[in-house]
């Protein structure tokens, strides 16, 4: 065992006896030390990996920032000359079901307004219209005819 062998046989005997009586920790104490050592090892390795990730993140952020910086400078000059556009208007809750152009007889086409100039031709003259109304009147029953006549008489009296 030893590099320098013992001369005395009695001493070698004591040495052998002591070797057989090596003190040992009980299981609980061994587990306690092992747990603490493993905890420290885990903590150290976790700290190391965290530092590596932190360094990588900082490096990448710097690279990204350096790449973005000239573009941002150029972009800010462009922004100075660019007009500020107003934000989109809030859409109204009530939308007209009938477009105003159709009500006025105006038709929009390719960005400019146009009027239907021939619409006056479709208008009927007064006599034709009166004939149409009289035909409708003839179709009515007696009770309704009488009622209509009373109404017309009243209007005439009021006009006079």
């Amino acid at each position, binding site marked *: 065992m030893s590099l320098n062998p013992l001369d005395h046989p009695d001493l070698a005997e*004591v040495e052998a006896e002591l070797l057989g009586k*090596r003190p*040992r*920790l009980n299981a609980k*104490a*061994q587990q*306690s030390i*092992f747990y*603490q*050592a493993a905890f420290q090892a885990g903590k150290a390795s976790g700290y190391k990996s965290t530092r590596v990730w932190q360094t990588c993140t900082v490096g990448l952020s710097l690279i990204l920032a350096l790449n973005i910086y000239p573009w941002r400078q150029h972009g800010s000059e462009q922004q100075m000359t660019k007009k500020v556009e107003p934000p989109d208007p809030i859409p109204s809750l009530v939308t007209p079901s009938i477009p105003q152009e159709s009500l006025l007889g105006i038709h929009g086409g390719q960005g400019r307004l146009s009027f239907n100039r021939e619409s006056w031709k479709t208008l009927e003259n007064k006599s034709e219209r009166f004939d149409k109304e009289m035909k409708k009147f003839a179709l009515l029953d007696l009770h309704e005819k009488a009622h209509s006549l009373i109404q017309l008489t009243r209007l005439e009296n009021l006009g006079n």
Partner: protein
Amino acid sequence: MPITPQALALLIESHGAVLQIWTRSRTHYWEDVVQEAFCRLAVQHPAPEHPPSWLFTVCKNLAEKSNVSHHRRIKRENLKAIPEAFESDPGKALEQTETLAAVETLKQPLKEILIARIWGGVSFEEIGKLMGFSTATAFRRYETALKQLRETMVLQSERNQ
């Protein structure tokens, strides 16, 4: 590469108690010192070539540091007692106690050399470096320690008979 968990567990089993006995004569906080030494071994990268001698060196340094920082004297009466954390085989308990008591009767450098050599498996050269001796001095003191221990054990056996 750091030490493997299996190797660490084996070292704790074989050297935990030995280191505690060895460190008890140096500091009152021997349990904490030994635990800290094993924790440092677990995070040591790369692992030392000869872990037992590395552990003895770390325990020695930590014991000195703890004594300096805490400024407390070593309670010698406590050092005589066998720690509860040691394995107690009912058949060998008495023999173990007697052997440890005999070892405790040795003077500090002799006791430390004996423990480090026999139970720690540290070479004389490393013991010399650890304690500030030459290899030859470490060997001579080891022989002296064995002689004194043999006398003590003979006296103990005569007393028992």
